[in-house]
């Protein structure tokens, strides 16, 4: 990340911030989509995060931490989106998938469907940790620093997320998405 661009944006240079936006937006959107599992919600989270980052940029002390800082803002924007949409996204019923006699390719698709459904059982906080660690490849200590929580909490969330995924997959395909969970 260009430190000079961050410094100029911090002083109010909108053009510099626009360049930064184009540098980080793909990563931010990818993370938002994987946490929220919905393109519309991910777009909203991205837009809110970018606007908030612009407003708060003068308060950023360590310019070299811009990328981690804006990812943190994005994760919190994802939390907000999940709160906003929680009430009307609790009634989806996952349909069972017939797994007998399927080819490898079909089996992989079935695995993906299983994961998609199982992932919806996770809390938004568990999803965030899971995505930052397994998708962005951040070590747990960096995830903790990014989210502003203890490393032990990150480790707990990851453990319980993995366990929940395993239990949800083992429980079979016909799992109703529980009330109050995300889409």
């Amino acid at each position, binding site marked *: 990340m260009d430190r000079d661009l961050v410094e100029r944006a911090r002083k109010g240079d909108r053009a510099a911030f626009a360049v930064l936006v184009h540098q980080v937006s793909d990563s931010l959107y990818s993370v938002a989509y994987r946490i929220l599992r919905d393109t519309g919600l991910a777009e909203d989270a991205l837009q809110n995060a970018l606007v908030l980052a612009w407003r708060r940029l003068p308060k950023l002390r360590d310019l070299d931490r811009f990328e981690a800082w804006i990812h943190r803002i994005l994760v919190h924007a994802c939390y907000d989106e999940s709160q906003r949409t929680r009430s009307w996204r609790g009634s989806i019923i996952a349909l069972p998938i017939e797994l007998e006699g399927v080819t490898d390719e079909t089996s992989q698709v079935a695995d993906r469907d299983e994961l998609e459904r199982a992932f919806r059982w996770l809390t938004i906080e568990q999803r965030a940790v899971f995505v930052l660690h397994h998708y962005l490849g951040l070590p747990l200590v960096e995830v903790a620093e990014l989210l502003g*929580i203890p490393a032990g909490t990150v480790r707990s969330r990851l453990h319980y997320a993995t366990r929940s995924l395993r239990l949800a997959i083992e429980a079979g395909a016909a799992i109703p998405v529980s009330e109050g969970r995300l889409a």
Partner: protein
Amino acid sequence: MSDDRSIERGARAWLELGPTQAPDHALDAALRTIDVTSQERDLRIPWRFPTMNPLARVAVLITIAIVAVGAGLYLTRPDDSKVGTQASPSPTVDPSISAPARLAPLPDGTYVGRAVKISDIIASINSTSWLSETDKEFLRTAPFAQPDKSTFTAYFVLDRRAYTIGFTVDGVSEVDSTATASFLDEHTLLLQQNYRGGPLQTRVGISVDGTTVSVTLLSHPTPDNLATDRFIGELLYGAGPFTRRP
């Protein structure tokens, strides 16, 4: 796909699927909003006076010191207006009114706890009744509960208001968390973290005895209210007394 490793492998491959480019219309909308949005001003006092020459800087610091001493003398002066107009006050001291707290009872530095045997920690995990079997299963995966390791040492670092707590296992260090520290009084340290837009506050009791410091968790809210977090918190803070290292 049943064990945790294969779940993780499958999940990593699955996470790679899906969009990886932010839609242009979303970026355009954000940038349009930013065009009409002003930034929040940073109102914090700078740590340095970059444009001031050394003499001017000294003058400012002396002025601040004089004003501070003057204000202190003014605020602690005897109240003359009550002389001779009221009965003498009772000689007993109201226990609810304490002397002004001496702030920052701990100097900056690294404070290192006593060495704890890893085998004792594992035994503690196994015998703690308020941990569920799942909690114990999780804690046994932590670095401080590996049977092939021998020694655990907790530490905390105070650097101005920056606070870090962590531990080392056989000399390998891991940061557990960071926070902003302030002393509520000479026996209470308040640690603040920002979490989901609000403060997450932990209060830590401090007892200084010569060169060692004992710390106690007075309140320890955790983001998920997990028993495992409570265990780790008690493990870290219970590994005292702590000794300051230069």
